[in-house]
């Protein structure tokens, strides 16, 4: 019975499906029409409402009082864990239509005031996957079973709040955005394994196969294992962003921002149910022949890393702009490691009314590389790289942008509970966006 051990491991739980929209990366959804076209490289530009997210100091340089909205962002993300399930791939996919940014700025007194909301991370996963598994004994008899996964996960992070920026002098401005932070997650994860084996089948298997392997199976006619997991998570906090924009030389702009998220409350409710007829199963939740429930509630806070972003932009003419950013994230002990992302973007006006933008960026994992042979604390490490391209059309009072963001990366993961095995993991993300800006 060649796959039984493996299946037993599998059905004890594909644990790490509870990973968030993407807790392991910081740059999952690019915000703002112009910024998205530039690969999210906007710290030294930021002269429109999306600047409130990237560098609030830049909004004082907006060409006009402006309202901007990225109303249609369609995001598809596919994570493939190679050979995770008895030689078969396990694929998690998410697709969502997302209004990911809205912002409006208005000169107010000596400065510029604005208000915005941004959704920097979001996932809607709805998976109903039945995986046929071959558990045939080596004696030539065929035996197969199904492993069914029902997985629904909705996980959204929202930032919303006011901004204010002040022009200190003609070449220096400062700004602050005070976002309220909210993360809402609801996840339902069902795993069902049912083997069409009878006592006689088992006896036949036992006669020909390794006893130890078969021993992991059952002594009842119907062999099944079912787990249900429900997670509800509500996080609230604040995220201030301090920004400075400075012009050291004509046509050169430097930007720097400093931000962090302080969580004020965090409530996690976790309900688990397990029913199993597996003979030797003995975990906290799962025991042979028992139906067990476990409900845990957690209230507390968690720490977020400081983010320091710096950028430079060069405006050689009124039709060309080049920009580059580097964002450094401080690690948090035993939670995330220090890391950085870099990005670069270019904007070129084909005509007075059409602008082409392109960008490249990294979206590195904040987890350490996985160590083979041991159970890693964080089960995934995939560094991502992305590219963007967009086209904007301007009228006197508005602009419309279409663009595509492509993200790709390969790394490793440990998706099976209790197993030190590593799976090659591929992540592919495609975002198409259509955004609109209005001048007031």
């Amino acid at each position, binding site marked *: 019975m060649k796959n039984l051990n493996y299946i037993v491991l599998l059905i004890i739980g594909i644990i790490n499906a509870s990973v968030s929209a993407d807790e392991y990366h910081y740059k999952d959804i690019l915000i703002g029409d112009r910024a998205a076209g530039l690969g999210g490289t906007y710290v030294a530009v930021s*002269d429109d409402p999306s600047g409130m997210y990237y560098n609030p100091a830049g909004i004082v*340089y907006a*060409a*006009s009082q402006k*309202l901007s*909205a990225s*109303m*249609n962002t369609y995001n598809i993300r596919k994570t493939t864990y190679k050979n995770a399930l008895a030689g078969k791939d396990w694929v998690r996919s998410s697709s969502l239509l997302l209004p990911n940014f809205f912002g409006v700025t208005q000169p107010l007194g000596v400065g510029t005031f604005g208000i915005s909301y941004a959704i920097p991370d979001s996932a809607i996963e709805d998976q109903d996957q039945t995986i046929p598994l071959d558990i045939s004994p080596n004696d030539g008899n065929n035996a197969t079973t199904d492993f069914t996964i029902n997985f629904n996960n909705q996980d959204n992070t929202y930032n919303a709040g006011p901004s204010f920026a002040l022009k*200190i*002098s*003609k*070449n*220096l401005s*400062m700004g602050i955005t005070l976002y309220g932070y909210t993360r809402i997650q609801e996840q339902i994860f069902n795993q069902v394994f049912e083997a069409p084996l009878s006592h006689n089948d088992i006896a036949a298997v036992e006669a020909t196969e390794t006893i130890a392997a078969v021993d992991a199976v059952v002594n009842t006619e119907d062999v099944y294992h079912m787990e249900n997991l429900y997670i509800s998570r509500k996080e609230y906090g604040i995220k201030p962003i301090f920004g*400075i924009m*400075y*012009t*050291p*030389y*004509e*046509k050169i*702009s430097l930007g720097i921002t400093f931000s962090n998220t302080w969580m004020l409350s965090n409530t996690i409710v976790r309900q688990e149910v397990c029913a199993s007829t597996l003979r030797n199963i003995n975990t906290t939740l799962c025991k042979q022949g028992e139906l067990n429930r476990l409900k845990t509630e957690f209230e507390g806070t968690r720490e977020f890393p400081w983010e320091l972003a710096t950028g430079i932009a060069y*405006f050689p003419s*009124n*039709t060309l*702009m080049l920009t580059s950013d580097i964002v450094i994230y401080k690690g948090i002990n035993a939670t995330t490691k220090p890391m950085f992302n870099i990005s670069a973007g270019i*904007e070129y*006006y084909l005509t*007075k*009314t059409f*602008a082409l933008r392109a960008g490249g960026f990294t979206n590195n994992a904040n987890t350490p590389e996985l160590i083979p042979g041991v159970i890693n604390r964080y089960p995934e490490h995939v560094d991502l790289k992305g590219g963007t391209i967009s086209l904007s*059309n*301007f*009228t*006197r*009072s*508005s*602009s*419309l942008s279409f663009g595509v963001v492509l993200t790709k990366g390969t790394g490793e993961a440990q998706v099976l509970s209790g197993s030190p095995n590593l799976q090659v993991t591929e992540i592919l993300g495609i975002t198409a966006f*259509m*955004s*609109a*800006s*209005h*001048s*007031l």
Partner: protein
Amino acid sequence: MHTHFIFLFLLLLAISSFPLLADNFRLRVHTQTLSLLTEEDIHAEIHFGKTVAARLLGQYPPYDNKALTRYVNLVGQALVLNSPRQDITFHFSIVNSNTINAYSTPGGYVFITTQAIKTMQDESELAAVLAHEIAHITEKHIVNEFKIKGKDDSITSGITRIVGGSKDSATVAFQNAVDKAVDLLLSRGFKHDDELGSDQVAVTLLAQTGYDTMALERYLRRVIKATEEDDRKKSNTHPTTDLRLDTLNEYQKSSDLILHFPQGKKRFQAITSNNL
């Protein structure tokens, strides 16, 4: 911690004291389309100006005298011939008020009070006041302040409104802007730079039309005498007359616009004495 703040403060102080550099390099080429004037813009300006004019007439009833109204219109139209705005039709009206003032709204609507005409002594002074109001229109002071512009009916703008879920900004802001424009004309007044600029345009128009370019100065000096000092200080609709006179003098001298053209005294007095 304090050391860090002090360091940051000193750094910002040092940076802010560096030589100032132009920041207009950030403007992208598409912003040039903002200044293009379309037919829709002109329609919007006229519609806006007509609405504001109607509100003004609600405050000040028109002075019902055809002869005097025709005369004011003739003088005004003569000035308009030399104005850069040949795309709109100017209308000149007299309103019944004891206040010395004149008003103009976008789209070519000019009002002058009966008391202002009574304060004048010749046609060139009437022309000077009308020219000043014409200048507010040709220089688009209200249009620019309230960003009055035509509806953008391009395909891009249409899709943008759908995507952004918003109405056309001009439509949304229209009523609000009318209220603010009436407040500007009756209480708040134009920006001082706009007033001073209109004086300069007015003098140029006087010269181009063949009126005495010193008429505006004469009229302003008479207004000073006719108006109590306290009232002038309280008036928000114009910068101090002294400042206006100084700036005007300087401009006329530097531009060689001290031209003693006809004043039209007899004609003015003949018409006004019979109709006011």
